[in-house]
């Protein structure tokens, strides 16, 4: 039964934690409202056209990815940058460790990047005694707490000011202060020193622009700008799927990204970086390395039906609108990516049987597909993954569905069996039951009853009513 591997205890704990439930629901609720205001027909009348354009541009780019990767590399190199191709996280770490050693760099500053989370970059570097300090406030807090991000855009969604005060007092030796502004100033002060002392700055990239050999980084704090401008070396790490063909395509993508993520027409800072500082420029890194990461993306690329999973621009809108995510939060999803996008890509990266329950953790309500800026048809992909799971595994459930399919294609047997069930059903209250007799307390029935009352079969089914009516008997 594909339900057998559900992490029931953990889900139950999360749901029972009312403070956490409130935090998740409120934070996502706010982001839902902000997005809605920013894409309303009054404010952005061509929103649906923009989505369609973004979808098409992404499809075209990914269907010709080799061409655009080579164009990106040629342009980045022409502007003085160095392009590094990495099959996996190990190669990325090896490259950085090698470079750090050669340049004598021991301190690294880092801005938020889900891609680096995906490859556990910080752990790999730490293992070799290289400090990579997170500089995004939420990520910095998580780094001190040794925790994983809770949400693509709001990583420390689950932390309270008291927890942050405790953390800072304990790990930074500062006075215990629950005022959020002061906590932010503390982080600013501590991290400012790091920015200015670091030998290497590592960022991710929201987009890779093929015709410019450039990376585009969006943010609100300023730490990505500092990370890419203060240290003498800048390394940008990005999955190969982040490509867009032209700088001019940013008009569409930037418009969709900010609005879908946080309701902002533009984030506070957008950096368009195409290499190390040029002769004559006053400041900026002397070296720029662009790391292109595969780490399984070519596997997803190969599946034409599910290729659109790679269109994702990591806005987080699907998470915010998902009624399941809003109950179970980010930590209950395995892998780096949570929410609906995580539910479709993690099974593809790790194989469906790694977490067979994951594609089923959805009511297929479609809220995600409705808000996805690049029109990924997440419910369809979940259904595809579900059929892959059941193909791998035969069990009681398959037998049940097969039996039902037989019954439902043999109407006389169907009518007989259902009439019998109606007759044998216990009496309830107004047609509903709270508890079943002991011999019926199993499987799906028990699971249903754990949460709500169950309706009993009607004394007279519709088909029985119709039979009677057709024979001229009393109606209704």
């Amino acid at each position: 039964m594909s339900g057998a591997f559900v992490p029931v205890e953990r889900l139950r704990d999360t749901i029972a934690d009312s403070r956490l439930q409130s935090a998740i629901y409120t934070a996502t609720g706010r982001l839902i409202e902000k997005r809605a205001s920013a894409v309303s027909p009054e404010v952005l009348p061509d929103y649906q056209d923009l989505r369609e354009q973004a979808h098409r541009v992404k499809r075209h780019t990914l269907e010709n990815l080799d061409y655009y990767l080579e164009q990106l590399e040629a342009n980045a190199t022409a502007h003085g940058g160095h392009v590094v191709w990495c099959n996996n996280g190990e190669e990325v770490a090896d490259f950085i460790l090698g470079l750090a050693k050669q340049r004598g760099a021991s301190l690294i500053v880092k801005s938020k990047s889900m891609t680096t989370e995906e490859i556990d970059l910080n752990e790999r570097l730490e293992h070799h005694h290289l400090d990579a300090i997170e500089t995004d406030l939420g990520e910095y807090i998580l780094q001190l707490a040794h925790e994983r991000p809770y949400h693509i855009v709001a990583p420390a969604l689950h932390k309270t000011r008291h927890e942050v005060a405790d953390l800072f007092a304990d790990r930074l030796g500062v006075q215990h202060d629950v005022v959020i502004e002061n906590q932010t100033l503390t982080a600013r002060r501590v991290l400012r020193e790091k920015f200015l002392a670091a030998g290497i700055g590592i960022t991710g990239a929201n987009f890779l622009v093929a015709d410019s050999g450039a990376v585009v980084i969006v943010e609100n704090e300023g730490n990505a700008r500092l990370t890419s401008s203060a240290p003498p070396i800048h390394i940008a790490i990005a999955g190969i799927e982040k490509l867009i063909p032209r700088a001019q395509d940013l008009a569409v993508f930037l418009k969709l990204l900010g609005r879908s993520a946080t309701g902002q027409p533009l984030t506070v800072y957008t950096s368009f970086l195409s290499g190390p500082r040029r002769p004559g420029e006053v400041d900026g890194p002397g070296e720029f390395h662009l790391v292109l990461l595969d780490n399984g993306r070519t596997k997803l690329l190969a599946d034409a039906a599910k290729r659109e999973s790679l269109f994702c621009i990591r806005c987080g809108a699907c998470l915010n609108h998902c009624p399941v995510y809003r109950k179970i939060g980010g930590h209950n999803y395995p892998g780096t990516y949570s929410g609906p996008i995580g539910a479709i890509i993690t099974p593809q990266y790790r194989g469906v049987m790694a977490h067979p329950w994951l594609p089923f953790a959805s009511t297929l309500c479609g809220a995600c597909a409705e808000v996805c800026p690049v029109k990924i048809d997440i419910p369809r992909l979940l259904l595809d993954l579900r059929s892959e799971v059941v193909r791998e595994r035969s069990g009681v459930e398959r037998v049940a569905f097969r039996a039902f399919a037989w019954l439902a294609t043999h109407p006389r047997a169907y009518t007989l069996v259902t009439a019998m069930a109606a007759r044998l059903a216990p009496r309830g209250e107004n047609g509903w039951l709270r508890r079943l007799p002991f011999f019926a307390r199993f499987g799906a029935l028990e699971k249903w009853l754990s949460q709500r009352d169950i309706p009993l079969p009607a004394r007279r089914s519709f088909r029985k009513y119709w039979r009677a009516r057709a024979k001229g008997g009393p109606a209704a």
Partner: protein
Amino acid sequence: MTRGQVAVFVTCVVDQLFPQVGIAMVEVLGRLGYSVHFRERQTCCGQPAFNSGYRDEARRLARYFLDVFRDAEFIVIPSGSCTSMVTHHFAELLPADPTVPEVASRTWEFSRFLLEVARVEDVGARYEGSVTYHDSCHALRELSIHDGPRRLLANVRGLELREMDATTECCGFGGTFSVKFPDVSGAMARTKIDSILRTKAHTVVSADCSCLMQLQGAMRRAGVGMRTMHLAEVLASR
């Protein structure tokens, strides 16, 4: 003189658990001048099997459905999710079968049938009371059903419609999701119920019995004494 022949597909949930919804729908259609027929061979559209990943079993049920309703003039269904199974997903199961688009084009969700085929917004119904309307997900997102039921309810004499703040949030049923992830499903239902209670309405109405089953079951468990009704039942009220 009849306006047309309607073959109702009542759905297995209505047939076995909530027959009064089927009866109400038949009544409304009859009053509008349609000849209504229940083809007794009907059973299930195959949605539970399809959503659970069992494509072969779902395909079998789809073929059966197509056979049962082969030459029907209108097929009317009191459920958005079963309707979208026929109109949106049968094609995925049987891409080369020409009867699929043919039957699909004659398949209608109940409220859309009233508005777009019968072209009525006022069915002469009366229901005294305050009502809040829950948008079921497949109806909303796959069939674009949102304003239609509200227009129908607006014409019910004595009925006061109060919108809840979370009208378009999923009730948590999701077919087998409700028993594979019961804790999450229950929590989703309770969030929905909180929103419903804030309207202080007297009745919850929806156009899909699975949602109503989920909400009613959860409300009963929580000791909430609200009524749930299918849109058809409200429209049949006099």
